[in-house]
């Protein structure tokens, strides 16, 4: 019988912080007009970004006859793809920052202000262990 896999409890940020974005792949087309802003971004701003973030692997690959796309790969194995057709370099830089600062988790609605896995410090209220209500 094979022993069951024990998954470590990851609490990124408590001991050490590991940025979740592993790789950014930039696809562009040499000819098409929707890649104009992307090509300008690749020439002007990408090298500076890559130097500032040495933990991110940056790959630039032509993808002919397709819209320009940025694909981010994360440590949990998931990826996020953003189409940047007809965008200016400043807007593309914004999308790159968005991908860089995310984790691979899906976008979700955060309903509570604090997400916690620790049990409550003061315990759950019980009517048998509280002083009787007085009016």
């Amino acid at each position: 019988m094979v022993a069951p896999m024990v998954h470590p409890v990851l609490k990124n940020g408590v001991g050490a912080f590991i940025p979740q974005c592993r790789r950014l792949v930039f696809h562009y087309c040499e000819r098409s007009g929707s890649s104009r802003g992307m090509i300008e971004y690749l020439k002007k701003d990408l090298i500076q970004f890559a130097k500032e973030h040495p933990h991110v692997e940056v790959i630039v690959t032509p993808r002919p006859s397709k819209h320009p796309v940025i694909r981010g790969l994360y440590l949990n194995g998931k990826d996020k793809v953003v189409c940047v057709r007809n965008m200016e370099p400043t807007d593309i830089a914004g999308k790159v920052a968005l991908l860089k600062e995310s984790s691979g988790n899906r976008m979700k609605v955060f309903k509570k202000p604090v997400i916690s896995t620790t049990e409550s410090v003061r315990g759950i209220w019980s009517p048998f262990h509280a002083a009787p209500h007085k009016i």
Partner: protein
Amino acid sequence: MLRSFTSRMVGAAQRTNSAVTASAVRLFSATSTATQATTSSTESSSTPSTTPSELSLLRNQLRYYAVAEIKSRPYLITKNDIIVLDRLKDVKLGDVIELNQIKELGSKDYAIQGAPYVSSEYYSIKATVIEQPKGKIVETFKKKRRKHFQRRYHIKPLHTLLRVSELEVKA
């Protein structure tokens, strides 16, 4: 000002429920009721500051919580929690933020209530910026019936996630 939660236990059933851990404070309330009276907070205390003996009571406990005020909003946090905030503009991934507006610092049996904040000599609370994601689209739909008025607003909120990396009570 140190607040004791033992005042709730006095007069209650003495048998322990398995769901509630046996509190060492019951010993405290039985032996030294005089000390308990001074630390009970239902009346206004004549000594608002926390004495070292009161702080050592808190330090002898096992786990702590804090009510931190970040951008004028309270967050009840323990260690390893994730705080979900609106996007902080002046912060990068991996930055460590020291929280110093703490309204309440407590444990199972005792709490220090700040007036308005707890003195920062008593604690060390740090949070790391782990992520700055975009939330899911939130739709607000407004309609006034029979008045030909309806609106749909779409927001994609920007967040900053902080992980509470340290929450310690100092001696």
